């Protein structure tokens, strides 16, 4: 039988030798996925493409990647990248718990979670909040378009106050800013980007893959069908006009000595434990992504100025990840031999004796 065209199906290892391969010798094709079934021009497809590029450039083995999602247009996208990785489409808003269980069970996996603004900021806000608090090593992308598109365009909780729906209804509620929320919660890697800014998004994704903790990336990703009209504050036009990068970012992964596009001039460097380095140069302002209070202040001020601040808004690579907090071995708990798991007879005897 033939499945519908968007299926990841089984990967057909490409037979023909690829002209270009990454640092582990794999061609880009090894990172691709099924065909997208999203609307033509959907911002999410741009993000998908950048995810493929980022895992390829970082040279991550595809079979060591676990993809997670909840419900919504965004959550369909894990089927469109990395066919050789395992995917788990969970229930609405509750992907973080699946990812948490899977990644504590096997901390050697690279986790990527794709969510939307409905998934994250409404039904799943509880799990989002606790994911960030725990600092689970997971790239967590919010494909943020301000509407519930699969159910035909209702406002989500990230829709701006006064934003207009396609049918003319006006949003009366204060939006939830997932970035300032994540910083407030102790997030260790909090970024905002725009699907129309591929270069910045690519750099942020590579750094997020290298980060040993939760990387929250809120990507403004316009919905061409339900939220790309006049009066929308999440349209391509509006987002392009209001995107305000706080800095230029360069990322030097641990396996490379230099990077071609290091921002010119003085940079602020943030080193990761694995040796990777992030380089920042402020654009039009002095922005320090390691200063939590100032970051929060700047984001709050941007709301009044109708700026969409993008960049890595806050970063702290030093905080322990959940794996470390739990005191686990860091090795997979999934295939430990019986001898490591079942205590000896004398241990049981001793417990029984204590209960007599």
């Amino acid at each position, binding site marked *: 039988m033939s499945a519908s065209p968007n299926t990841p199906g089984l990967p057909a290892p490409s037979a023909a030798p690829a002209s270009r391969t990454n640092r582990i010798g794999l061609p880009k094709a090894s990172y691709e996925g099924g065909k997208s079934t999203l609307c033509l021009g959907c911002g999410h497809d741009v993000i998908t493409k950048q995810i493929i590029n980022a895992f390829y450039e970082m040279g991550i083995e595809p079979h060591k990647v676990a993809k997670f999602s909840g419900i919504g247009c965004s959550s369909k996208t894990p089927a469109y990248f990395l066919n050789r990785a395992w995917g788990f489409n969970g229930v609405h808003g509750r992907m973080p718990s699946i990812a948490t269980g899977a990644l504590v069970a096997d901390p050697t996996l690279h986790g990527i979670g794709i969510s939307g603004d409905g998934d994250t900021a409404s039904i799943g806000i509880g799990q989002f909040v606790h994911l960030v608090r725990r600092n689970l090593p997971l790239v967590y992308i919010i494909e943020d378009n301000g509407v519930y598109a699969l159910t035909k365009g209702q406002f989500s909780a990230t829709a701006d106050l006064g934003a207009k729906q396609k049918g003319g209804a006006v949003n009366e509620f204060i939006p939830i800013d997932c970035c300032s929320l994540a910083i407030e919660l102790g997030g260790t890697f909090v970024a905002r980007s725009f699907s129309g800014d591929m270069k910045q998004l690519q750099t942020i994704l590579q750094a997020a893959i290298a980060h040993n903790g939760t990387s929250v990336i809120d990507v403004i990703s316009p919905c061409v069908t339900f939220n790309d009209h006049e009066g929308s504050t999440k349209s391509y036009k509006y987002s392009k006009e209001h995107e305000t990068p706080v800095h230029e970012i360069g990322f030097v992964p641990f396996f490379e000595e230099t990077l071609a596009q290091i921002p010119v001039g003085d940079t602020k460097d943030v080193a990761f434990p694995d040796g990777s380095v992030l380089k920042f140069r402020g654009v039009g302002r002095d922005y320090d992504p390691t200063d939590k209070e100032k970051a929060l202040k700047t984001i709050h001020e941007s709301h009044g100025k109708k700026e969409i601040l993008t960049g890595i808004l806050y970063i702290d690579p030093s905080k322990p990840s959940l794996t470390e907090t739990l005191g686990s071995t860091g090795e997979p708990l999934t295939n430990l031999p019986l001898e490591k798991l079942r205590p000896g007879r004398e241990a049981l005897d001793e417990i029984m004796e204590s*209960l007599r």
Partner: protein
Amino acid sequence: MSSVLTETTSRAGASGEAVVNDFSLQVATANGSGSQTANSVLMRSIFRMGVPVSGKNLFPSNIQGLPTWFTIRASKHGYIARKRDLDVLVCMNPETADDDVREVRAGAHVVCEKKLGLENPGKKRDDVTYYAVPFSELVVKIASAPEHAKLRKLIVNMIYVGVVADLMGIDPVEVEKAIAKQLKGKQKAIDLNINAMRLGLEFAAQNFPAKIPFRVERMNATQGKIMVEGNMAAALGCVFGGATVCAWYPITPSSSLCESFIDFCDDLRVDPVTKKKNVAILQAEDELASIGMVLGAGWAGARSFTSTSGPGISLMSEYIGLGYYAEIPAVLFDVQRTGPSTGLPTRTMQGDILLCYFNSQGDTKHPLLFPASPEECFTMAQEAFDLAEQLQTPIFVMSDLDLGMNNWMADPFPYPTGPFHRGKVLDAAGIEKVKETWGRYKDVDGDGIPYRTLPGTPNPYAAFFTRGSGHNDKAQYSEKPQDYVNNVNRLVKKFETARTMVPKPEIQDRPGATAGLLAYGTSHYGTTEARDKLAATFGVSLDYCRLRSLPLHAEAANWMRRHERIYVVEQNRDGQLVTILRDELPELATRFVSVRQYNGLPLDATTVIDGVRGDASASRTGGSDAQKGGLDA
């Protein structure tokens, strides 16, 4: 309603003739007053004298102040069900004293605080014997300083232990040993408590020449046995069963299961060299998350579990359904309590049978295991992990508050010797043999159970995408009607396979019996006691089947087919198991008689005896179903 059990024992007690090792004693105190230590000591002392004993803590949803009762039953016959009638009462709570005395049966013996004046004319019950003790005056003798007010409140409890020991013949040496065990090495506290106990002992010796006729005498029926809570036993089962991920959210009466697991893992799952843990334990933000974590971990290949109660299962329902359709191993302990979320959270019930068996949206059904003892909490926890991985599905272990939180006499647990059964998992080499012909949901072996791979398996053919029911047998997205039907029909086949793998029933037949009693979980104790009494007192001979799992094992179904009348005993209002049995065996539907107790208290034998006898008389008058609620004491 007068009960046959009451009649037999009360006659003995009231005539002044000693009744040895056969009584029910209740201590009424206020919650948070420290009486739990005293009550445990009392129970353990009787246990150490070789007398079969059980203890049931009836406590409020409260940290301090509300009334709480602890009931100890001693039985030379080994009956450990709750007994409806009380023979001895220790009355320490002024708030409930009047009601407490009113509720004991005629001929009972009441130890009480003197200043309550319960034995004063006008208040006194003529059919009850009082032993008034000035507890509040006595306690000052050992803790007189004004700043010792809190201490006095705690150790006054040990004075009643001493009084009861003298009045009922409990060996003070055993009481002292029990105190030392309870307070593990805290010498100052041990000395203080022993002094308090002796004070009570001496007071009773000097002031009450006539002792309580319910006596404790040494016997040899508890040698080698242990005392343990079901939750602790289940936690130990998880440790020895190889659980590596535990995700939970606190809820009475299940919290102590995961807390025990944490304690055991601190000792048993830490690498002696690296000090790193071979386990990951997560306290989740709610049950919506704890089940997600369990499924995520099971999907990744860990043995994962959660423990919760009915309200938690309700919250988990959406993910349990996905776990069923996506075929992910998971173990859920449901330590059942009385519903709903706000209600009687500290009372027991077997009320989640239907909730769990058919849990979630769409066509779903799940295997349930019914442990009836701490030993079974230990062994079934291990079996649950094997079944979850072999069947690739969530497995429910249906405990309850009575089993989980009360201390039970048990045989030491058997050391598990078999391997872990990890189910059908293909590694890289396994996948290499089948390559693109492998399908995550393909029924290769005809048992409905497919082969799975774990994330991280280094083979380009190994990965698959997990989603609910919208997939074909290669895990590819599909909304085709036939793909859906094929998939859910295979799940039915898998459930039929489960039927052959779940624990078999325990059957005890008597020659010539044509009717039988059927019970599960903690209903076992009241039911088997009733069975003995029905035979001895009324000449009613009944077979017995203890159901240990669902789906119904063939041996259980065959047993039912052999019986003309089947009394199904359970602790819920609607006869939830009967509903399932009538559905599974429609040809036997009229043979089932539902016997139920649903007042939040553990099942007593009287309820079962009345249910069976009521049915007999109803049958004579042309009635069909005789059922008891359990509130009519």
